[in-house]
Each structure stands twice: as C-alpha cells, then as structure tokens.
C-alpha cells in the first residue's frame, strides 16, 4: 500500500503527523513517534509571550531587590549570559531532533502582533527546521477592534514570517472568521504554503468552589473533528496549497475521512497524549486494512475523493447539511 503524501512540499511516507504538543519537547518521545510511524512532527509552540515576557520577568526579579540592603546587594549569581532562554532552548531542541530522527521537523511559532519575536522564525530555519507552522492565536477581546483590523493583523503576520524564511510556512488558525473561505484564500495570497485547520483555543473554565477562572486544558474529543472535516471539504477545490487536518482526530477512520475530504495530512495530539506514541501503529494498520477493503492503492488516490468538488451533493457540506441533520433528528439519537 502506498501511503505517501506531500505536505508543504515535503514528501512524507504517510499522512500521520503528530500535531504541536508537549510530546515534542522530549527527544526520546519524538524518536518513539518516528518508530511508531509518524511521517513528520510539528514541535510544541514557541509563544511570543515567552520570548518577551520571560526576559522581562528575569530582568525584574534579578534586578529589583538589588542594591537595597547592605548585607545583600543581590540575591542571585548572575550567569555570564542567558544563551538559553526559552526561545533558544527551543532552537536547540530543533537541532537535537534533527540529529535524532530522520523525519521532517516542523517548528511552530505562536504569536499575534508584529515584532521582534518573528525573528525567531528565521532562527528556527537556521536551526534546521524543515518548515514552520505559524500559529496565530488571537482572542479578539477588544471591542474597539474591527474585523478588518484583526484580519489584516493575521495577514501581516503571515507576510512577515514568509519574508523572514525560505522554508515552507503553514498557517494554523481557528475557524472564527465571518468568511473563513475568503480568509483561507487571503492566507494563500499572503504566501502561506498550507493551512492547518483548525486551532483549538484553550477555553477557561470556572472553579465553582473558589469562584475562580480556571484555565485548565481539556483534550479534544472525536466530535470536534466535524468542524475541520466540513471546511476542508469545502475549501479543497479552492486552495492550491497543502491542507492539514487537526482537532478531534483520534482513530484511523478519522484520518481516512480527513483524507477523503482533501487533507494532505492528519495531525493528532490528544490521542497521542492519552494513549502514547504506539497508537500510531494501530492507526496506520487499520487505515491500510480499510483501504485494502475499499481497494484504494494509495493515499494520493483517496485525497479529496469526497471534497465538495467531488461529492454528489456539495451542499451537504454547507447549510443544507445543517437543515438535513436537524430535520432528521429523532429522539432515539439521545439514547
């Protein structure tokens, strides 16, 4: 069975790519992922805030208590240099991973506003990253910002990173745009080599006992894959670049569905965190079984077979689909 696929111009042995997650901070884990069949790995994200705020915090806590009290003019030894702040630690990890594994390494940078942090995409390239995933994570909480302004910010980010590097750049975003399809096209125009659909926002929860906001992490559930599934199906015919599906992909059937609607790769995180890297082997095995049953000979053959351009009733992915489901609702669905 030929499982090969192309993503961001990278020839991959299969479409199974671990998404950005803490797993990639340990080189051993990435080796395990490779052994289990991962065809590339997206590293955990380097956050804009980490690049900026950590330096400020360090400076603040080292300097503020200094020279205040005769017996203790400082409270810490001052290292000769901070050559390994989080950002540079990240760059070292890229290099480490490149040494340790043969699969492509996609670095991930997460930020919003333009600024010095973007320089790190260049450093990522220099450290050996095969591609960059630009993760734009922005909660438009400021009511004075218009949607146009927010959109322009996204576009500017993509342009800035594309300008900084010569390796492929994918853009990972959430679905919350008035016209996501149009945005997707604009990302491509701005230079994005691919889209990663979709980002999950960490939604805060409320701690009822202490009446506090509790930013805990909930891993994805399979239900959530419906959103990317629909959008990939609709966008595939319009986009020239790569598409990665992510969010809610837990099983071989999830992967297959994503490929069928047009994704080039399926990205997984929660299931790997739950079940460990070994789960990839099972997923791959089950994929192959299904493909053999259905007499597909390669992934390329499957890709987009059920996108909106290919299915008999494209409206199924659009509004009509919604109406159909509602009308088809029966009480026993709840059992």
């Amino acid at each position, binding site marked *: 069975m030929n499982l090969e696929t192309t993503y961001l111009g990278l020839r991959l042995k299969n479409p199974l790519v671990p998404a950005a997650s803490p797993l990639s901070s340990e080189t051993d884990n990435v080796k395990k992922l490779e052994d289990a069949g991962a065809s590339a790995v997206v590293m955990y994200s380097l956050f804009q805030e980490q690049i900026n705020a950590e*330096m400020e915090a360090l400076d603040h806590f080292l300097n503020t208590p200094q*020279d205040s009290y005769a017996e203790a003019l400082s*409270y*810490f*030894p001052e*290292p000769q240099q901070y050559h390994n702040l*989080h950002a540079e630690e990240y760059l070292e990890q890229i290099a480490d991973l490149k040494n340790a594994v043969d699969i492509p390494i996609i670095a991930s940078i997460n930020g919003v506003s333009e600024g010095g942090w973007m320089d790190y995409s260049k450093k990522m390239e220099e450290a050996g990253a095969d591609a960059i995933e630009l993760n734009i994570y922005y909660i438009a909480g400021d009511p004075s910002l218009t949607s146009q302004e927010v959109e322009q910010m996204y576009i500017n980010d993509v342009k800035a990173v594309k300008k900084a590097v010569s390796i492929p750049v994918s853009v990972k975003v959430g679905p919350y745009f008035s016209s996501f399809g149009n945005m997707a096209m604009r990302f491509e125009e701005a230079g994005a080599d691919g889209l990663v659909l979709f980002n999950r926002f960490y939604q805060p929860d409320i701690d009822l006992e202490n009446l506090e906001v509790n930013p805990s992490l909930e891993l994805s559930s399979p239900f959530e894959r419906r959103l990317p599934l629909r959008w990939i199906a609709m966008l595939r015919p319009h986009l020239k670049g790569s598409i990665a599906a992510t969010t809610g992909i837990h099983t071989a059937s999830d992967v297959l569905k994503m490929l069928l609607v047009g994704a080039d790769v399926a990205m997984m995180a929660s299931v790997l965190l739950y079940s460990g890297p070994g789960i990839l082997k099972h997923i791959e095995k089950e994929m192959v079984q299904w493909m053999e049953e259905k007499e597909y000979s390669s992934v390329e053959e499957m890709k987009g077979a059920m996108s909106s351009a290919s299915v008999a009733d494209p409206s199924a992915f659009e509004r009509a689909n919604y109406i159909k489901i509602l009308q088809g609702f029966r009480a026993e669905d709840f059992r």
Partner: protein
Amino acid sequence: MKDLKNSQAKVTIDANEAAAYVAHKLSEVIAIYPITPASPMGEWSDEWSMGGKKNIWGTVPDVIELQSEGGAAGTLHGALQTGAISTTFTASQGLLLKMPNLYKIAGELTPAVIHVAARSVATHALSIFGDHSDVMAMRPTGVAMLSSNSVQEAMDMAMIAHAATLESRIPFIHFFDGFRTSHEVQKVVQIPDSVMREMIDDEWVIAHRKRALTPDKPILRGTAQNPDVFFQARETANTYYNECASIVQRAMDRFAKLTGRQYNLFDYVGPKDAERVIVLMGSGAETAHETIEKLNARGEKTGLIKCRLYRPFAMQQFIEALPDTVKAITVLDRTKEPGSTGEPLYNDVIAALHENRLEEWKSFAAEPKVTGGRYGLSSKEFTPPMVSRIFDELKADKPKNHFTIGINDDVTHTSLDVSTNGWDADEDVFEGLFYGLGADGTVSANKNSIKIIGDNTDYFAQGYFVYDSKKSGATTVSHLRFGPKPIRSAYLINKAKFVACHQFQFLDRLDMLEKARPGAIFLLNAPYSHDKVWDNIPRKVQEQIIEKNLKFYAIDAYKVARENGMGNRINTVMQTCFFAISEILPKEKAILLIKDAIKKAYGNKGEKILQSNYAAVDNSVDNLHEINVPKTAGSPIEMRPPVPEEAPEYVQKVIAEIIAGNGDHLPVSAFEPDGTFPTATTQWEKRNIAQEIPVLEPDICIQCGKCMFVCPHAVIRMKAFDGELLEAAPETFKYMDARGREWPDNTKVSIQVSPEDCTGCELCVEVCPAKDRTNVGRKALNMAPIDPLLDQEIENWDFFLTLPEYDRSEIKQETVKGSQFLQPLFEFSGACAGCGETPYIKLITQLYGDRMVIANATGCSSIYGGNLPSTPYTTNSEGLGPAWSNSLFEDNAEFGLGFRVTIDKHTEQARELLSGMNGSLGNGLADEILKADQSTEPGIYEQRLRVARLKEMLQDSDAPNAKMLLSLADYLVRKSVWIFGGDGWAYDIGYGGLDHVLASGRDVNILVMDTEVYSNTGGQCSKATPMGAVAKFAAGGKKVGKKDLGLMSVQGGGAYVARIAMGASDMQTMKAIIEAERYPGPSIIIAYSHCIAHGYNMKYGLNQQKLAVDSGYWPLFRFDPSKVDNNENPFQLDSKAPKIGLKDYAYNEMRYLMLAKSNPKAAKQLMTQAQKEVHENWRVYEQLEKVYEPEE
C-alpha cells in the same frame, strides 16, 4: 618592564572584587562561607570558577562552600597540608571562628592568604560595619598581617601577600576596611596576568607541594608533644618570622618595578622635618594623607606613617620611616581593647621607640611624645577635621592620651571635640549625593554612572553607598566623587555640588539640602507637572533652595518610566537627568555612553528591554525642567518630625535622633553601658512606604482572620469590642457585627489597617477567601491607592488602638480565627514586604508573647528583630512581652538552652523557697501556687494573680529568704523559651548545637524559618537549598537534595517535630505551634518561609507554599512522642500524596527557572532527579506513618 606598565587596564570596581580578582588568579582551592562584608569575594570567586575563568597556572580554581567559617578554615588547612595553593575570605566572627586553624596553619609554616574585609566583632551589639577588632584579635596566631588602605591597594597588597606568603611560608591576613573600602567603588589599575606571573616564582609553588602530605612520601605533621620538646620546637619558626618583613619589602619592590606603584613596610607622607606625626592603617590613612597635604599647604609641618605590614612588626623599619625631627606622635587604632595599656598599634609603637633607645637605630632630636587614640569603630566617620584636630592636640605640652575621636564621650571624657569648619572639598572635585529607595535602582544607576565616567574620562571616580537597616522601603544614599586627582576621601560627602532626590516622599523627612553647597544643583523626582512642583515642596526646602541659590530641576520620573515600559524602575531616567544637568560630560556624549552601558547590561536580556531603556533615556531629557525659583518661600508644608510628639522620652531623645540621621551626634551618656534597649519602638517609626493599602469591605468580610494571620508586619488587626465603644468612632471607621455565637450581644468586630506601617505587600488580599457573590473580582479586602485614604485611616487606626484588647481567656485561641483576636507582640518590623518568616513569629507572639523569651540566631530574623533604630518586639497593656537577645550565628540553640536551664533552676529555687515558707504565708497561697495548673491560658492568668499577691506579701519583708524569693517569684509563672533562626543556622553552622539541644530533653521550642538559602547575606546556598535551585555558591544549580532536617529530628526520637507551611494549611500551622509549646521537652518546627531570594512576586508567597505541599516537595507532618504513652501514632502526615508535578511548583520561581535559562540540560536532569526524590521521600513518609502505628 615598561610594556607591562602600559598594558595595565583600568577597571571600576570595589575592593572586594579587587582582592578576589587576585586571589582567584593565584589559587587552586578556595574555601568559602558567607559573611558580611566579605561575602562578595566568595561570590565573585564562585561565579568566575563557574564561568570557567582560569588562574595563572591555567586551571580553574575549585571553589567550595563550607558549613561555617570554622569549616572553611579546616578545609583550607587540609588543602594546604596536601599541597594546594589556597585562600579564603572572611570577616568579624568568621575570622574568629578561623582562629584555631590560623594557629595551626602558621605553626606549620604554611603559605596561605586570608583576605579579610575587616569588621567589628560583636560585643555589646552586633555591627556589620568596619573596624579592626577582628584582625587585631588574630595577632597572637602567628599570621602576617598586611593592610590595604584603598581599592587599588586591595588589589596590589593582595598580590604582594600572595607572593610573600609563598616565599616566606608565613600565612598572611590581607585586610582592608569593611564597607568603607570593601564596598567603595573606585577606578583602579588591574594587575595583568603577566605581572602576576613575574611576581610568583613557581619554585615556591613546587616547594609548597613538596611539603605536602602524600602516601608516596609519607610524613607526619600535627604530633602531640610534651614539656620536654614543645617549647624549643615552637622556637624553630623564628628564622622565618625574622625574614618575613624583608621578603615583603622585596615583593613590594619587585611589584613597583612591574607596575610603577611603590609600597614600603611603612610609608611616610609629609615633609622631612615634620614635628608631629600620626601613625595608622586602613582607609583612615587615605583621609589623613589628604588632610596632611592640605595642612602642609597651609604651612604646617605634619606627617603620616601608613603602616602596611603590621605583623611581623618591623620595628627598625618603623623607626627609620619616622622623620628625625618628630617631637610628638599619635597612634590611631580602629579597635578597642578594654582594660589594656593601650590599643595594639599604639603599644607596638611604644615598644619600637623603647627598643630604639636600646638598639639606637636612629637618634631623634628629642625623644618623641606618644599618644594613642581610638577612631572609626563600626565605620564611624573619620574626616579631615578630625585629623586636623588630632594634629592640633599634638601641639599641647601634654596632649590628651587614650582619647577617642569622632564621638562625644560625655561620661569618661575621652573624646576630642572637633569643629567641622573650613574643610570643603577642592573646587575641582565633583561631589554628588543621590537619595533613593532600595527598589528604585538608584544605586545600580550610580554604579553605572561611575563606570561611565571612569571608563570614558581621565577623571578619578569614587562611589560609596549607604543603606539603612530596613529590608523594605529602605533609603539608599549614594556618594559620588569625580576629579582630576586621585580621590583619597574615605568619608561621606558633607557638602555636595549636586543633590538628587529620587523619591518625593523623602523631602519632608530627610534634610538633604543641608548637605548642598551654595549654588549647587538640586534634582527632584516629583509626581507633579513642572509648574506645580514648587508649591508642593516643604517650606524648609524652599527656603534652602532660595538661601543657597540652588539650581532646581524636576522631572516626573515615574511617569516617564511607566510610559516607556520600565514599570517602577526610574534608574535610567534619573541617571539620564544627572548627566543632562551635571555637565560632567557633554550631554550628547553622555547619552550615547548611557545607551552603550544599557546595551552592555541588557543586551543579553532581549531586544524589548533594551528598547524600553533607550526610549526612557530619550524621553527623560524632554521631560526634565528647570524650576523657576521665586524669591520667597510660602509653602504651608512642614517637615515631619521623625517620631510623633506623644512618643516616650527615650524614643524622642535617642530613637528619633537615629531615625532622623543624627545618631552620630548622640553622646555616650545616651546609651546603656551593656547594650540594653527598650522594646516596643517600631510603633513610633512611621515609615509610610506603601503605595497601596488593603481596604476592607465589611459587607463581604466573613471574619475568618486569615488576613491577620498572614500579615508579615502585623499592620492589619482584628478586635472584638462592645458596640457602645463606637460612640467615639471616626465617621469612616469600619466595623461589623461579630459573627458566631460565642460573642455577647452587641459585640462588634473591626478589621483595621495601620496605613503608615503597611508595606503594601498584598499577601492579605491574596489570602482573602471572601468574595462578593455578585462581582467575584471584588474581595473583602482589595488594594487601593493610599493617598486619598491616608488621613482618614490614620485617624481610624488611632481610634482602633484605643479599643481594649478582648479578654484573652474568653477567646478560642487554638483556632486560626480566634488567634487573630490576640494582640501581636511583634509589629512593624523592617522585614521585606511580603516576608515569609515574620507571620510565624507574629503568630507565636500572639499566643505566648506575654511569657516568652527568645534566643535569635544572627540572620534576617535578628536584623528585622533587633537592628536599630527601632525594634519590633513589643508589650501588651500590662507591660508584658517577649524578651529577646541575639548571641551569635553558630550558638543559638545552645544560647536558648541556657535560657531554659536558668528558668528551670530559678523556678525550682523559687518553689523550694516557697515550700519552705508555706506556714508563714498563712492563707494557703504557697500551696495554691505550687499546685497550680498552668496548662491553659486562664490557668496562667490565675497564677499571675497569685504571684502578684505573693510579691506584695514579700515586698516589705527583710527576711533573707523572702528577699531571695521576691527576686525569683516571677519564675513561678510558666515561661516559654523560643529559639528562632533560619536554615543557614539550623542546617549548617548551628546544626551541631541544634542536634545536641534536641537530644537534651529540655523544654525549648525551636522555630526554623526555612528560606532554603542564607537570605540575610544575599541568597547563598545552604544545606536546605533544594536540588536544581540556583543560589549563590550554587550558580550551576544545587546538585544534591535538601537535607531532611525534619526526618533527622524525628529519628532522634525525643523531640516534638513538625513541618509546616502556613500557606498550605494555617490550621496545621496552628496545631503544630500549640503542640510544640505544650510538649514538655524540646520541639522543633520547620516552617516553609517564602523569600525574595526565591525570585518572584512575594504576594504569591502563600500560593507557592501551597504548591510546594501539593507537589509533595514539602510534606506537612507532626511528630509528637508524647502520643506514644496514649498508644497513639506519634507520626502524623498532614498533607496528601503529590498531586501536581514538582515543575508546576518550582518553575514559578526564578531560583529554579534561572537554571533552565542558563543551562537547560542540567536543569532538566536535576528536575527529573528532584522529582524522583519527591516521590521517594513521600514513600518514606508514608512508610514512616505505618512504622509508628502502635501495635494492636
């Protein structure tokens, strides 16, 4: 040779760095232990070795921290005996602890250098400041002693000492004045490696190694000898001592050829025909040098001998250094030896002159008169007027002998009175004074300015920094001098050309313009627009500006800092203003240099910080304004008195003067001759350091007491009182109905903040659990800006104080809430804002303060507990309260045990006497007293009443037993002995004693406030420091785990042991303290104490305590051996199994994060190991609980 001289780089550093630089270059093994003011020498060495800096032999010195100075000396001795070139650094008590080894090291003729930042030895009081009492105490050990008088000399003499010790085989103490020299920043010439190479002959090094202990060539050293041989064997060393002085002179001469700086054993300054000469050593010699030049320029003939090699004292060379014409000599000693024939240098000079009469090295025109005097104890100022006054005295027929100078001794009249007129600095010297707040970066900025001027001009530069003794809201005064000639002024600036006030609130408190010269520049950071500044400053300040014709500039530096992303750090802003108006450098050039310096300092910390600083520089100049000075002063604002008028007489006369900065003027008679001070004085020192204070919302408050419980400064208080008392309450006074059924009708509760004592730390707001149900962001306590609240809250606080304390016996003291109705007898200390130690102390004083005596180990708790001007332990309305003392760092457990033994003995004696007179007391009182149950608060209260009756009955009796009993009667009321200290004491230097006291069976209560570093001396590693944390002396992260003092104490078996963390469980903290106090034997409580040395915002201190417990890093437990008698499990684990990772706790703190930032591989590995140990330890604790389960 000439090339070498030219290649010498200039650096702007202090003497600690200068001495350490040489010591590190010339050592293989460096044994260290922190002590002020010598700690930075060890810190530099550790940092340099961590950074891979090599010595002149091309290898990185091995720097090792010990558990005490005694330990460092032992390791030094061992390293020397096995052939390493070794050094150590210390001061004061530390040097005293090294003394036994110094006898050995000298007795064995072993080359070594001990660099000492000379500091007062504690006598009637501890002092961290400089004098020669420590080094003078080492005279009999046989070490050679070489004195440095300045920063340059600290580097040069360090070199000479290291060379001379190797050649002579006599160990050297190289010393310079603590703080005055050790912390003075000067531009000096750095000795290049090439000079060091020339100065050290490797043959000496090889010879030293050849004498080493090695099994390859076994020998034995350190025998025990008998009367037959000891004496003559001891005399074998004479040859070496006889040659030592000339070896030192040769080293000095060689050094002069290499560097152009010539020193001699005794350097004479002055004309050949001087008739009056003073002799001294240390920084005072620089001041004398400067003064003599001026005096002689005025036509006088005065001379000075700088004694450099003090031991061995080369008498002939000393005599030869004196001018033949000398008629009168004063010898000045910076030490006091009570009961001696005179201080040490004086006696040496007398002896030298006497021997000259026998040996006839030189014949004087007439035998000179010699007097001796003491000066400069504990860094007391020593100034040109004093030097001049001493020379004047020498004109007298019978000059005063055994005098003091610099103080007013109105008791035994030893002092010479001094007039300060006519001693302004030369016109070409720039003198600037900068008043700042500890946290505002003033000192750092000034250090930076000195470097800028030092590095970029031909000017000589000097900086000296004065800090007050508070750890929160501390005032700093920077004294900066620049000039074309070498600066020898080893004293503070008295008349400045530039005065900067970086904190507006200082204006009505500190009379800083008193120190401004006429025509000087005055720079003020004022929170007003420039047209409003004049009207908002005190009248006295206006008057001084007008009278002295000052040029007055102002800037709203906080605004500029905030607007440029600098937060509250105004250092860059004020530094830019200084350069913009002081005209030391052309403005444009100065700004470029500031930016350059910023780049050096912050370049490695990220672009954003760099840009903020640059922007602040650019915007400072635009926001700086010269203020138009009117002809008259009309401000209604008065200067504030240092203490309120209602303060007691002693506070007014003594404490207030010290607070106002006039302590130098207090005469000898102002003080008790034995170091005794009254308690309860912080209440009079209103420091007003909070920007924001907590404000209560009575409708939300649930009266849980947690805010009071955690307040480090006892500034938030709770009282219950009868509603009728509210009649006199101010309008804005807040109160609530008392919650709970235990209160009588109409009981009200007030929670009140003392706004002038609050530090604004926010712990109370963070801990407050009560939230507005309709707006959960609003708690029962919220921080609010102090300005609009200050006046009303002062009034409310004053009213609150008039409310009576609730009857202690009616309060449920053993609950968190109940305990907070008890009056704290520890208040308003100078501890850091948000301190993690003081809440424990405060709680203990609430419970036991009226009958407790405290032995306090040296450290943070002895500084905020007992550093002048004001002290925090206080009294209740009956005048009862904690009695407190500090002995030393190392002996505190034993010191406290001594308290217990006395109290037990006196109680026993009182009971014996009372039993003996039972009949004569008639009414059965004796019996009642002897049989009283004092296990509860009411029981103790009743006993107090009985004892009061007893004392009344004994008052008029002449019977010897009655008199004796009267003197002991108070011991019939139970006393509580507490031993307080930090982890440096308990885990390291005092552990031997602690261990012994825990095994003593005696009823003492030990509180270990575990901050996991030596907090007071600046965060050095202790055995309590956890694995993976960065601390000084563990710059690469601590590699071994924290010593488990709790477990070790449990295994002793006989002591009550608890580990607590109030942020994790206040109830468990309460229980542990109460059980410990009740336990009839020794108790030890190990209390998690968050600390600024952990590197995060202290307002989250309690959250971190909770995370420490949740992660299993800090398991809470109590071990009560008395439970065994009741067949109960004595070991109780009070916290649950780890539920978060160690990282989730640790990486909120800079001490852990720093390693992840500087060496992520090591951090990862240590964190993994530390996590493993947390799990292993937890397993041990769980097993332990099972092991102690009583058998069925």
